């Protein structure tokens, strides 16, 4: 039986839409890199400090590969763009937990809210990519999905260890809820329908 390529030519996103999404993902990754880098000095727990250090480099590389893809999509290289002002506010709220005793809030913001959201968006985008004409985007998204999953797992392990009492678990859940509300109001990293150009 002869080999038959069964891939179809159906697609979801245009070149311009893909570039727009890449800029928005890049915004989240770049901001996350800067936020975690700044938190290193503010976090007393050495094990968390070192995990932030590792993930700063991973987020920087994510921002870099997304930024390098942009010229291939008729857009300027290494440009980040937030979807809307509410998402910027969400990122600022997430970043502002800077007291030494707020490690739980820092971990929750990144590993329970932002990264799980990004993982979901990257995975959905990946499933919508056409395998014939979008392999470069697919490769990038596959890496983002794989590494973001690893990050979430590591963050969860740290959280389980640090938020190990009922009151600290409550703190974690309440902060997660507050951030989730803002994230929903922003429409996530891709924004609301009305934000679309």
């Amino acid at each position, binding site marked *: 039986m002869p080999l038959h390529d069964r891939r179809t030519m159906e697609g979801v996103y245009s070149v311009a839409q893909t570039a727009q999404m890449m800029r928005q993902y890049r915004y989240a990754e770049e901001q996350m890199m800067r936020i975690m*880098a*700044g938190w*290193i*000095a503010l976090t007393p727990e050495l094990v968390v400090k070192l995990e932030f*250090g590792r993930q700063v*480099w991973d987020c920087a590389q994510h921002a870099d590969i997304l*930024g390098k893809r942009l010229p291939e999509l008729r857009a300027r290289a*290494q440009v980040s763009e937030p979807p809307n002002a509410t998402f910027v506010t969400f990122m600022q709220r997430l970043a502002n937990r800077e007291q030494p005793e707020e490690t739980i809030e820092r971990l929750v913001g990144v590993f329970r809210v932002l990264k799980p959201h990004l993982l979901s968006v990257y995975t959905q985008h990946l499933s919508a990519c056409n395998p014939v004409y979008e392999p470069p985007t697919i490769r990038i998204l596959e890496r983002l999905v794989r590494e973001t999953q690893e990050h979430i797992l590591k963050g969860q392990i740290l959280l389980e260890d640090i938020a190990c009492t009922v009151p600290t678990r409550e703190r974690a859940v309440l902060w997660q809820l507050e951030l989730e509300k803002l994230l929903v109001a922003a429409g996530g990293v891709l924004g609301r329908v009305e934000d679309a150009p």
Partner: protein
Amino acid sequence: MQELLGLLRNGLHSLLVNTIQTLEETGRTVCDVTNTGHWECTLDLARQVWDTSRHVEILLKLLERVEGYSGAYPETTAETASAGLADDTLAQLIELAQKTGDADIERALDFVLADTNARVRKDQAYAVA
């Protein structure tokens, strides 16, 4: 031999304290200073953050090996760890490890030294450009 091990333990501890300080400072730089800088420079600093956090891990493991631990000695962090200073300290510690006959410590520190040498070369390239 005990005296050599004591010197090695003390030296590793000092280097650990300085390296944690460097990690915090470099992280702060990625967060604050490079917001308007060139992306390549930011990327390079982010790599430096990762390298430094790996060095902290290495030093913690080595301290354990010589029966030391973080916080064993009072340290001042007034002396900011420059790459050049770290180079000298690392070279001295490698020599001490050789004298104690611990090839694993010697090898691990040499990897840290190689990273630090690479960092100095990059910093020099930035200074020229």
